[in-house]
């Protein structure tokens, strides 16, 4: 999720808070210790996950991402049938703190969206890898997935980020 700013004061503050001025005392260390990473999924540097099953790729945001955002209060999703492109925004997640764009890890066509999120956006917090999935995509180029991070790599990536 690209944290593009739609700016409330707290929205800005939360990002700034991520870059703690005390490297020995990372902000959000508490969240970090609880955030989970699932094996078998692929991850982006902007904190989306993708799970490929046959010709369908399911996409959501990671536990790490939802932990940093706080309670999700609104989810903006594309229509079924829309085209998505790898690295481009397909929707947005709003929390009390911030608005974040969500980028697609793969290019292709949206074949299903999780309409439950309209009524219950908090599913992204309570179940980021299961009930909180966002879209299902039919990838146009499945080889795109190869360039994404695996679970170990992503765990390390998050640790390095939090340490900065």
């Amino acid at each position, binding site marked *: 999720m690209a944290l593009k700013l739609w700016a409330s*004061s707290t929205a800005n503050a939360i990002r700034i808070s991520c870059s703690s001025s005390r490297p020995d005392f990372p902000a959000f260390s508490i969240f970090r210790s609880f955030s989970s990473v699932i094996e078998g999924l692929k991850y982006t540097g902007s904190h989306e996950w993708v799970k490929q099953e046959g010709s369908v790729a399911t996409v959501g945001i990671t536990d790490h991402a939802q932990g940093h955002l706080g309670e999700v209060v609104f989810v903006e999703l594309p229509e079924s049938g829309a085209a998505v492109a790898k690295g481009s925004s397909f929707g947005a997640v709003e929390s009390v703190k911030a608005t974040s764009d969500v980028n697609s890890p793969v290019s292709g066509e949206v074949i299903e969206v999780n309409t439950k999120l309209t009524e219950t956006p908090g599913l992204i917090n309570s179940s980021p890898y299961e009930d909180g999935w966002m879209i299902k995509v039919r990838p146009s180029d499945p080889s795109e997935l190869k360039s994404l991070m695996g679970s170990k790599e992503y765990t390390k990536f998050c640790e390095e980020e939090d340490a900065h």
Partner: protein
Amino acid sequence: MRGGGGLWQLSQCLARRLSRSKPRGMPRAFATAPAAETVELKKTALHDLHVEHGGKMVPFAGWSMPLQYNDSIMDSTLHCRAAAGLFDVSHMCGLSLRGRDCVPFLETLVIADVAGLRPGTGTLTVFTNERGGAIDDSVVTKVGDDHIYLVVNAGCRDKDLAHIGAHLDDFKAKGGDVEWHIHDERSLLALQGPLAAPVLQLLMKDDLSKIYFGEFRTLDINGAHCFLTRTGYTGEDGFEISVPSDHAVDLTRAILEKSEGKVRLTGLGARDSLRLEAGLCLYGNDMEQHTTPVEAGLSWAIGKRRRAEGGFLGAKVILKQLQEGPPIRRVGFFSNGPPPRSHSEILSSSSSGGEKIGEVTSGGFSPCLKKNIAMGYVKSGFHKPGTQVKIVIRGKANDGIVTKMPFVPTKYYKPS
């Protein structure tokens, strides 16, 4: 209003970092060195206590301040309204004006009827410029005829002090008797919520039931000589306590301990949600140099005598607006869709298809009401409660409706 740096400072800070970093989303926020590395952030007397309590420290108006603690912003906001929250607002600037002429001096700079205040009472006011715009908002207290105490925003400190200082020099050169003192030796705590009074009462002898909203006393709390104002920035009953900085940690710990965990430390994130729910302005967002107090909906703060006499900077513009009505007005909104944020466009909802009528200045999801709330400015004529509007977010027009503020009823302690 009574925030600190306001949005612009945070945005600047952020913009600087974004412009230097790789465009890859969330990591931007982590990977790049914050402005803090080049400019040393100031720390309040409570800094270590914040860190000890899990405070996520962020740069705010040149200070390192807690955005939140271990509670989420949602929980923290709700807790303040259900029990109480304790905020470190020491970044804000306390100031005393003393001398025979301190009241007439201050009246040249603000819209309030300071002379008309009873000793020991205060009010929200606005420092204006020659064009009638707001330099800052502030709570001013008339301690007595020869002593004014006021608190200005952290983010406005330098420009406010320069402004007041320049006028002070002129005033004294003409023979006026006023001296000022900046209370950098003191820290400022805000204790807000229904448990604020019962908990604070445990730490002092004076009877808090006799001190009403807007009133000020100097008295002993937990063995320290404090300035106590029954005011705040949440819409709840509560206090702002100016305490000598070497007693600030003791007082904070005493409040937390006496409350048996019911008072919780609360950060800037919840403070912003709370003040928005209370319909209060954040200077830098909802009020700026070009906004007049009339446009901002603060005409009530212009004293009757001041309306007749003027005598403050920009009075000509402001009094004319009072007569003829302002071209734009600050209003509240409820809306559907994503929460509006600062700078979201507001369109009229006419069938002919929506001209731009204004812009949102603050907005978000209300933790208490569980729906979107926002404030912003619209052209006069579109300001009446019930007016349908469209609020544009990421290119999509969402339904909104002009609504009275505060969004959440205020609970100030007033004589019944």
